[in-house]
């Protein structure tokens, strides 16, 4: 399989503090990759570099579907192909749920309002909240908002979906409904890169699990390799800490 996302020598520093050290990573089309690791290990920064929400070292290269991710006219094109779901949802609070999902296809793809609405209602049905379409985000629970955010990202028919700790700001009883949607999505062949603390989800859904620490990829492999026979002390220590609490 050809790499859909290719990351070479990715470096990123905030002032004198280096967040990412020379990361190399390829993501194949249709692959579901979960990134795990302690807070501050650089995993969120890594996926935020892919659509350049974070600027990175000019010598590093990231390509998505063969297009280089760099400042300039092509950037909006890359971003249109890369969906993102945020920890804090970031829905547009002044628009209905339906308008939230319709906006980008209309503005970026030039889809007509009628076509965008059909598509949006279809997606809202898929994530199980069609009946909330006319409500505003503030009237929804966290889990519902995050499902709208997933529908909003899907509306652009992206080549890849990035999830930045999508369940970390949810009440525990709402984590399940969001993970269910993501699990279904993974089954449809969408390429997904998921930063998460949900080890059960990573083990069950991921094709590949990446363990990051200190701005480096310490270990990568199948869920069985990472969770059952981790090679690195640091991975073992992390997994012991998160799995036995």
């Amino acid at each position, binding site marked *: 399989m050809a790499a859909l996302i290719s990351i070479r020598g990715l470096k990123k520093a905030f002032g004198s503090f280096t967040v990412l050290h020379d990361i190399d990573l390829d993501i194949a089309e249709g692959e579901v990759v979960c990134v795990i690791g302690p807070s501050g290990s650089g995993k969120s920064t890594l996926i935020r570099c892919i*659509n350049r*929400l974070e600027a990175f070292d000019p010598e590093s290269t990231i390509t998505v579907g063969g297009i280089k991710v760099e400042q300039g006219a092509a950037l*909006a*094109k890359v*971003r*249109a*192909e*890369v*969906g*993102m779901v*945020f920890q*804090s949802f*970031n*829905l*547009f*609070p*002044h628009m209905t749920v339906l308008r939230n999902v319709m*906006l*980008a296809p209309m*503005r*970026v793809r030039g889809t007509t309002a009628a076509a965008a609405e059909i598509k949006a209602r279809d997606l809202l049905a898929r994530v199980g909240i069609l009946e909330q379409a006319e409500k505003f985000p503030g009237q929804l629970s966290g889990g519902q908002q995050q499902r709208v955010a997933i529908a*909003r*990202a899907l509306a*652009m028919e992206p080549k890849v979906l990035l999830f930045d700790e999508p369940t970390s700001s949810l009440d525990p009883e709402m984590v399940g409904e969001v993970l269910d949607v993501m699990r279904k999505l993974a089954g449809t062949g969408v390429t997904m890169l998921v930063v998460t603390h949900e080890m059960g989800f990573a083990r069950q859904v991921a094709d590949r699990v990446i363990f990051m620490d200190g701005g480096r990829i310490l270990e990568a492999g199948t869920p069985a390799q990472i969770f059952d026979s981790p090679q690195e002390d640091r991975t073992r220590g992390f997994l012991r800490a998160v799995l036995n609490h």
Partner: protein
Amino acid sequence: MNLINTFFNVGVLLDSLPQLLWGLVVTLQIGLTSIVCGLAGGLFLAIARLYAPAFFQILLRIYVDIFRSIPLLVLLIIVYYALPFVGIRLSPFLSAVTALSLVSAAYTAEIFRAGIEAIPRGQFEASAALGLSNRHTMIDVILPQAIRIVIPPLTNNCINVLKDTALASVVAMPDLLKQATQAQALSANPTPLIGAAIIYIILLWPMVTVVAKLERHFSRGDR
């Protein structure tokens, strides 16, 4: 009573009323033109300051700081009496509108900037991640939210512009204040001045109470 005849002379007031109302029309013309120009200029400055190259951002900041520092009366006199020396001769109306708009734009730019900066970063990031252009991010996502935040301070600024139109009387603009002083001179009685003051109050009091209401409405977190 002597006091009433001096300050609230009904006969003098009725005689001067048509003149005062003409003055009011001129005041509103200056005020509304300046408000519209100031709003457009301020919005442009605020957005330019957000996206322009660093060098222009510094220039824009200098503009905003200068025009917020200079007394409006001084600026007005420079525009009307000093610019003709370099060949720029503006009518009293244009002088007043220019001075008021330049200053109003500076204040408006600061108000819009504060409003835009109050929108969480996540809104910009979500827009960027969807591939929205800067223009659509502003028009569809940021400004509709920022407008609600900036309406009370913007209304306040409009009140200030309307009040400051009175300064136009120093460049011989026949605005409300100028008409009142002329009527006072003509009738040798200060009642027209009191009449003008009352007209200003009748015009602006509703706006002042609206601002107070809006501020209460928006501070409830009802957004």
